[in-house]
């Protein structure tokens, strides 16, 4: 039988996958993908805990996480387009302006 811990472990695995993506990616668009993975992992944990305790608060928080993710994508992609127009690349190393 599938219990709460199954879902939480899956959520932790997915969060770790997203975290590995955030750490090893040097391309900004790929970094955005990795953050989406982390947000989704959190949503799975919210839904599972909400189901386990028969408490709707978890699902409510998942809705707000989805709303935050949607606005993050809208603003982030706007910034991404501006960066690409300015530098011609999305490589994080190319944006380094400080010496040291």
């Amino acid at each position, binding site marked *: 039988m599938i219990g709460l811990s199954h*879902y939480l472990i899956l959520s932790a695995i997915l969060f*770790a996958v997203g975290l*590995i993506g955030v750490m090893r990616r040097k*391309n900004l668009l790929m970094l955005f993908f990795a953050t*989406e993975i982390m947000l989704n992992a959190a949503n799975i944990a919210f839904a599972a805990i909400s189901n386990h*305790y028969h408490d709707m608060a978890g699902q409510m928080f998942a809705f*707000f996480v989805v709303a935050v993710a949607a606005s993050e994508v809208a603003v982030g992609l706007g910034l*991404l387009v*501006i960066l690409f127009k300015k530098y011609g690349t999305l490589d994080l190393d190319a944006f380094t302006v400080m010496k040291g």
Partner: protein
Amino acid sequence: MITFAFYFFAVLITLLFLVTVMSKNVLYAMTALASGMVLISGLFFILGAEFLGVVQLLVYVGAVMALYSFAMMFFDSNKDVKEKNGSAATVFMLGGAIAVMLVLVFTAPIIGEGVASLYPTAAGATTNTHAVGLILFTKYLVPFEVAAIMLLVAMIAGIILAGKKMDLSLSTTEEDEMPEVIEGGDK
């Protein structure tokens, strides 16, 4: 049956997200991410959160992925992404250590068994969608309105950021006759 469905979804989601993280091609990464999101909504349906599953399908697979694919058209997506990576062993060790830590953090309250439901399911609700509506428009009304304002602000920000000098074409304009796109740059 539910056991099979859970493992089916879990394995596929993990594999697809690994493709997203490891792939060098933006198109492959985005397709894998979109399919992973669809399968995650399957998990939500198993968990009895039907409305959340539908929202996941509509918002993530419908809106967010469409935005990403629009953004991808600005960039050269056929070219493999060149990335200079440091030591892979360090990254995997850090990721693994954090995964172990997360499992410990998540399982600690279950071992403690000290958690009780503070706000049970809305009384008189027949379906999940009914309960979501009852709670969202009573207890969570203020956060709901604030989220609406946040989305409006994000929409205006997106329009202003991406829409600036939209009439300039990056692909047909030559490099030397391209005017300075962003004022107040690093010069």
